[in-house]
């Protein structure tokens, strides 16, 4: 099966990166997946328009709470990149949601133009499939 997306996983937890990567590979072993434990490195790489596998749209799976540059900060910086670069990426938040989290924060997520979907950790096969379907259908851009 030919891959229709490539992926960038940004998460400070190695285990989470590993698990997400394996889930993706199980869905399609041809997916090209790049992992960053540090959002600053990811941003650098993306900023240099380092595109993987031609011009496949790239899905960024982004954790929110990370040391140094957190997910929000990453998106803010990302939105400063040139539109040419931005249009190649789809940002999806993959994070732990919890009741003790300030609701204002969650609401705040959707004020970012580039974010329009959140997936709660842990990732499962079902969540991944429905997410990919939504992206294919174009309901997530």
């Amino acid at each position, binding site marked *: 099966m030919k891959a229709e997306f490539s992926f960038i996983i940004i998460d*400070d*937890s*190695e*285990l*989470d990166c*590993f*698990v*997400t990567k*394996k*889930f993706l590979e*199980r869905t399609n072993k041809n997916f090209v997946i790049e992992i960053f*434990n*540090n959002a600053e490195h990811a941003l650098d790489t993306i900023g240099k328009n380092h595109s993987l596998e031609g011009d496949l749209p790239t899905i960024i799976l982004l954790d929110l*709470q*990370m*040391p*140094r540059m957190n997910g929000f900060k990453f998106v803010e910086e990302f939105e400063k990149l040139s539109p040419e670069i931005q249009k190649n990426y789809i940002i999806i938040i993959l994070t*732990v949601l*919890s009741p*003790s*989290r*300030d609701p204002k924060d969650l609401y705040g997520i959707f004020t970012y133009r580039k974010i329009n979907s959140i997936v709660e*950790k*842990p*990732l*499962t*096969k079902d969540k991944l499939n429905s997410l990919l379907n939504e992206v294919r259908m174009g309901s997530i851009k």
Partner: protein
Amino acid sequence: MAEKIKILYVDDEPENLVGFKASLRLDYQIFTAVNIPEAIRYLDKDPEIRVIFCDQRMPGKTGVDFFEEIRITHPLPVRIMLTAYTDVDSIIDAINKGHIFRYVRKPWIEADIIWAIDEANKFYMANSMLAIKNDELQKAYNELNKFAYSVSHDIRGPLSGILGAINLARDVDDVDEMKEMLFLMEKSVTKLNTYVLSMHDYYSLQRGELKITEIDFNNIMDELKAIYSVNSKINHVTFKVNVKQDEVFFSDKAPLRLILNNLLSNAFKYQDKSSKNKSVEVDIEIKKSEAVIYIRDTGIGILASHLGEIFNLFFRSNSLEVGSGFGLYNVKSALVKLNGHIEVDSVLHQGTTFKVTIPST
């Protein structure tokens, strides 16, 4: 002896001011003002004025007007009205508009004034205690908020990772892949465990009472050497300890050990893996009832812009290594408990030195 209570008396008749000051100056520190602008100058200059007496009938503004005005600008001093007339209307006004604490009738007798000052002072103290308590409560509340917030990430984070891995493991047949996963799961569990242990440290530091005993630094460092020698061997980090203690030293061993342990743990944790000459050095000298401790490492260093924040709860300067954001915060709390202080000096990619000073109790 406690400092004298500061009192301001405002009256347009100078002889009243002189009389007031003459009879009370031995027990209190008295400021007198012949008009309202002068009174306000005193209040601006000296925020420790606790009690204000003011005459009602004065040219220009009345005592009520004055109190009404300073109730907003100088809310802390306790306001007492002096009035020569049994003028019910002005007293009602003083109570309603000036929110006065008492009124004393003129001509006053010394006993009335002293009694009013005593009561006013009690009222002032109770109010300021309340303000202090309020501040403390607000601080504790903010910390609790931060705490609840962080727990979601630092406990639920690793848990959800492990849960995801278990979920994934159902479909994994390859043994090597499984082993890799188990290795990463173990790291997450270890992190979780460290987090819970530091949380315990945090809690006991906030609540515990001091237990002062005689401290033998050689003894404490021997224990820590035993713990860190393994790390030192495996990761090829030279570990040097130098203790100079010729006098007795009294302190609480638990927080002292916590400080040393946390700083050492960081010194080993944040080494530059690729560096050839890795070392951690501890120098302890006890001199004139004071312990001066240096912990030097040749590690990755701390960004200058982060130095101001490293002692904050849940601050993490680095994503390369697992950190809970508790370590240096706990060090700082332990130092507050022991009346000590800490300085840090760090050069990126070269290393960090912490200097800790603790007085003998």
